[in-house]
């Protein structure tokens, strides 16, 4: 599904990603772990066009997406969430969700002026979908709150809500557990498992909470110093001496 080949990225003197390659198989929930500074978020940024790599290539469904812009990558049905949430702060929770769907007739100014019935009809559909998402996330009473006023955990949920609105083929989830209440985290994990199984959505998950990773992901890729150290099942990773040493810094 996703293939990263010899990716390399430096920021000034910091070599964040070093000739790194990895593969994410279709319909898996793959974990991407590593100690702080291993390059996990940078990898996400490179895959989604947020940063340009110095060298190397990214393939999604066998198509080279290395030079595509973020919105073009989104159009390919590859979606990401953020470690530090980035919502449109001065828009309501509902609008943040309704921003996401593709092919919105009303995003054409001409249609907004002269094709208002079609635009309204589509808006109603998107609104209904957004309210369903908010219902699932237990945030329905927040729909008219400005996103800037949400506490951290709910901002994270809003990020997940955006993912649900996007209906992508693959999702890069950056720390989905941080700030989310444990009861809801279980629900989110179950949802990820469910849509992966039933809709065939592929996930690549970065997460510091090893319980979440071990519970949710298989296989797991370990990134250390911008390079892939190993890949394996949760049990293999748990018992891998190199991984333990990388985490302990010995």
């Amino acid at each position: 599904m996703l293939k990263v080949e010899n990716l390399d990225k430096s920021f000034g003197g910091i070599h964040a990603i070093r000739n790194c390659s990895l593969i994410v198989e279709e319909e898996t929930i793959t974990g991407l772990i590593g100690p702080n500074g291993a390059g996990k978020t940078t990898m996400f940024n490179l895959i989604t066009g947020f940063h340009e790599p110095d060298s190397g290539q990214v393939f999604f469904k066998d198509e080279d997406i290395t030079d595509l812009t973020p919105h073009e990558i989104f159009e390919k049905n590859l979606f990401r969430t953020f470690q530090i949430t980035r919502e449109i702060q001065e828009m309501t929770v509902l609008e943040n969700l309704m921003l996401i769907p593709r092919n919105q007739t009303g995003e054409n100014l001409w249609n907004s002026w002269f094709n208002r019935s079609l635009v309204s009809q589509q808006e109603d559909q998107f609104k209904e979908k957004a309210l369903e998402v908010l219902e699932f996330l237990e945030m329905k009473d927040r729909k008219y709150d400005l996103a800037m006023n949400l506490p951290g955990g709910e901002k994270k949920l809003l990020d997940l809500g955006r993912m649900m609105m996007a209906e992508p083929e693959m999702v890069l989830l950056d720390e989905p557990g941080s700030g989310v209440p444990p009861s809801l985290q279980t629900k989110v994990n179950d949802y990820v498992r469910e849509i992966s199984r039933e809709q065939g959505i592929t996930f690549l998950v970065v997460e510091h909470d090893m319980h979440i990773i071990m519970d949710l992901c298989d296989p797991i890729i370990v990134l250390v110093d911008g390079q892939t150290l190993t890949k394996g099942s949760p049990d293999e990773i748990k018992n891998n001496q190199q991984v333990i040493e990388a985490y302990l810094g010995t």
Partner: protein
Amino acid sequence: MLSYFVSYLVMASTYSVAALALNLQWGFTGLMNFGIGTFYFVGAYASALLTTGASPDYVGGFGLPFIVGLIGAMAISGLLAYVLAYPALKLRGGFFAISMLAISETIRLIVKNEKWLTNGVWGIRGIPQPTRALLGANLAEWVYLGLAIAILIIVYRLTEIGIRSPWGRVLNAVREDEKMAEMSGKNSWRVRMQSFVFGSMVMGVAGALYAHYIGFISPSSFTPLMATFIVWLMILLGGTGSNKGVIVGAFVVWGVWIGSEFLIDFLPSGITSKAGFVRMLLMGILLDVILLIRPQGLFGREKVISKLGSGSEN
């Protein structure tokens, strides 16, 4: 006195049209356009050249109807904005602003020096005012006021509908966090371009309205103060991001500007000759007062731009 008041209303309405355009670009899209004069200027000249009679001194003189002049002003301003957008929209924030200011001054100097095209510093006279020949000067003033207000209402409605639609939602997202908007699948370049071109077309209309009202234009009619910075002052006073606010801002600022003419009578004789600079100083002080006392303007930004977020269930 009444005709003075009508003149005030026409000019304030004309500036309101330009202020709505700037509010779309800056208030809703984040494009800091310091080159309003470019499109105001080009719109005025385009319409003047299309509607005036033939002249041996410059090109144009097609003698076409007012409405053709208005459409021509929109089309040429829009085309120019489209061409300028390719290099200029690659810049952000202050860099974009300075580039637009430089372009504006360059175009003003071209018009000033290319006599064959625009009659240079002598400008274009006899720009027809609709219905003036038919109804006479006094009645035509009222008709023109009605026309200016009608155009203001149309522009207001079009911008309001635009910003309260999914298109406006994308504009808002791009203004606030362009990268995030891109990550949400929105082509930020395209919407910035659309806002820039549409806003510039409206600025061109404002320029045409000015030209047909005054009846004479020359490069000195479009100094940066009168074509660009006064419009900025209007939206800052009214409230960036509020269409109603910028219209109020335009009427207030234009009132202060023409009202300051009367101050000349009260100035000491030694500085009467510098009255123009005193008026500019007054506008500068007004800007300082706004920024210090009420930086969000009289109305402030409308927090919610989508009708769906207003609490209604529509």
